[in-house]
């Protein structure tokens, strides 16, 4: 934040320049400080609470009063790591599935001209608007019925949860990918076709490597969406060792909030690190994805 851009010649012009700088630019740094405080305070607070060995809500109010990793160690005595693993499995699988199915669908819509293409795109656009979460009663009852026939797809199965998430994958992501696929010139496909490549070879060898940025964005968005989902995860996953982080940590905080606080804070810090890292790493692409119509889930 230094002002010394030009070496001052005379006192008067320096004061004038400094005043102008303060009026036009300098105050923005003050505003930035205010926003930084607003944005960062809760995050600093949770880090400080995680490092506070006393672990209760009341004891966490003095920021960075202690530095101690006992809360992190204590997580080992709970189901936290099981939930963490479950979350990674469920979110990872649904992200992978969403990317593969979305990319395949986007390829079909972008490269082939077939009957029902426009109505299909429109139908996807409309279906996408209706959130699956609103139909959770039907999801619950359907899995109840499915579980009597195939127990692996019934309630309390992670596979069933992944399937439900994949059900919503096509609608949300196809458009994001479709737009991107359209920016890859058709001439590439055509020249490959002349060289004798099949459609599957074109898809896997030519298109997929070129659209990696959007694949990453869709994977991240799908990962975050299932990472943060509570409503469907809660009704599908019944037993405690099948819970995801969202379900398990809500349970911690809703029961005996005050005494579990240190554990919660440590768990929150650990759980947010991968997401934060991914998000900041892919920031550039995500901003493009955001402006193309996705919302935080």
């Amino acid at each position, binding site marked *: 934040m230094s002002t010394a851009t030009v070496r001052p010649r005379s006192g008067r012009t320096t004061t004038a320049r400094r005043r102008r700088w303060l009026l036009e630019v300098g105050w923005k740094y003050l505003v930035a400080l205010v926003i930084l405080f607003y944005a960062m305070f809760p995050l600093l607070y949770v880090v400080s609470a995680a490092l506070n060995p006393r672990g209760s809500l009341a004891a966490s109010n003095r920021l960075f009063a202690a530095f101690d990793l006992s809360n992190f160690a204590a997580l080992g005595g709970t189901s936290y790591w099981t939930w963490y693993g479950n979350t990674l499995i469920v979110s990872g699988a649904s992200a992978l599935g969403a990317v593969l199915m979305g990319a395949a669908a986007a390829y079909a819509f972008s490269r082939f001209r077939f009957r029902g293409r426009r109505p299909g795109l429109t139908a996807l656009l409309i279906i996408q*608007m209706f959130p699956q979460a609103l139909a959770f009663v039907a999801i619950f009852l359907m899995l109840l019925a499915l579980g*009597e026939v195939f127990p692996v797809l019934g309630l309390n199965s992670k596979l069933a949860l992944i399937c439900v998430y994949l059900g919503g994958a096509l609608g949300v992501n196809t458009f994001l990918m479709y737009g991107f696929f359209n920016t890859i010139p058709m001439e590439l496909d055509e020249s490959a076709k002349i*060289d004798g490549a099949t459609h599957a070879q074109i898809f896997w060898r030519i298109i997929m490597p070129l659209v990696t940025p959007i694949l990453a964005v869709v994977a991240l968005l799908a990962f975050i969406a299932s990472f943060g989902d509570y*409503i469907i995860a809660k009704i599908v996953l019944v037993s405690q060792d099948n819970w995801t982080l969202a379900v398990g940590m809500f349970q911690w905080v809703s029961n005996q909030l005050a005494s579990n606080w240190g554990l919660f804070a440590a768990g929150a810090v650990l759980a947010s690190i991968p997401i934060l890292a991914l998000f900041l790493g892919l920031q550039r692409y995500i901003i493009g994805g955001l402006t193309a119509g996705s919302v935080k889930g």
Partner: protein
Amino acid sequence: MSVPQGTVSESAPPPHPPLTTPAAEPHGRRWNGLGWGFVVKLVLMAIVNAFGLMGVFAAVQAESWIIATAAAVLLIAADVVYFTKRALPLKYLLPGLAFLLVFQVFIFGYTAYIAFTNYGAGHVGSQEQAVAAALAQGERRIDTSPSYPLSLVEQGGEYGFAINDDGEIKAGSVDRPLEVVGETSATGAPADVPGWNVVPRGTFLGDPELQELVVQLRVPVSDDPNEGSIRTRDGSTGAVYLSTLEWDADAQTITDTASGTVYTASDSGSFVSDDGTALPTGWVVNVGFDNFLRLATDPGLLEPLALVTLWTFVWAALSVLIPFIMGLVVALIFNDPRVKGRKILRTLFILPYAFPAFMSALLFRGMFNAEFGVINEFFFGGANIDWLGDPWLARIAVLFVNVWLTYPYYFLVCTGALQALPSDALEAASIDGAGRFRQFRAIVLPLVLVATAPLLISSFAFSFNNFTIIYMFNSGGPAIPGAPYALGATDILISAIWAISGVSGGAADYGLASALSILVFIVVGVISALAFRQTRKLEEYQ
């Protein structure tokens, strides 16, 4: 709605010699269509077919005809699509489409179906199941009823009984009435039961949990619920328990032989006696628009629901407006090349957005705690402000949380929109003497709005159903006094549906919850239609 990487087409090389590598013969000749790709496809399809056929058989065995049909149709469709040369686009669409149809489209249809039934606590399953359940509840041990030597048997994790009925071994479980499985010459409990594993008596005696289970276990004597069931207290002798209730399928009545009361099957899916008492178990029937009528006319429900609906709209509108304005202002302030370190600032500003949303809600739940929370302690001098217990404070607090975690989104979006503004228009305006504010109102704001309007509308639809924040922050509370189904002051429609449905415990009313879901679907549909028209309009601009 373009993604910034739209420049690929410009940078792509023109018809390019480098791609055609000098090979002895072109790829096309060498390709005979049966390479390793085909093997992979064959293996995948074999797996799909194996699981598909297994599924169809399992469904047929369980007599779930809808599931069996759906599985069969999907399986045939998969085989047809992947083993013909035609239907090329479908080869790419089918996997996603299958999931979409089953787990989204069907779910919507199923919701509509449930909305027109009385599905819920006390009304589950078919009438046949309701009769069996009613008779099971009325079962008593009759003094004259026979008793048999019995042993506990097990098959694939399911427990059942085997009895020795004068030399005939009969075995069965909860779902499978007793049937003859063999003969024995010995008296006493059967030691060897064909098709079942006999559980040793020692295991039974040593396992209190198993004993508990066995005492609850009832094995029907036959398909006719009137014939009663076998039960045991000690695991070695079984007695026939008969119901004091008697089912008459022709007259559709259940008669209580002890008191003489006659319960008649009613149109509303339960057995009702003349004096109006009903048996606790009923079955699912179609009730037409009853659920919708109840939502509209039941005064105990209508009043809290009206409050919830109003708050839902206010919540969704403010959840878009406040963060948007904040994000726009911040973006305007920092869209200035003279501010140094903008990249770092931007990264720090969007941290709340990168923090998982459900975690933010839980975090603030603790921070807003009246007794120990850091917010009261830090910003209000230790005052005991009851943020989560007062309806208005709770609403303000939950909005605050949502603003905190969504304004970075609008900041990013608006920054993008501002950077795409045509600088010549702004220059021309300033030459024409327009002030900063005038430029903002006449040029910047309209252009930013054109770019962000579809996002604003879809954010509105999203906030409208943002269950996670509402539920995680305060579980919809504080409760509205006198409201049924535990509705609270910060409940929005989707969390109200959650409370009414009772899927997480409490009195379940799936029918009513689904009816409310349908209404919300309609609202979302209208909003989406608006959004759709808006995006159309936008496309025309470009």
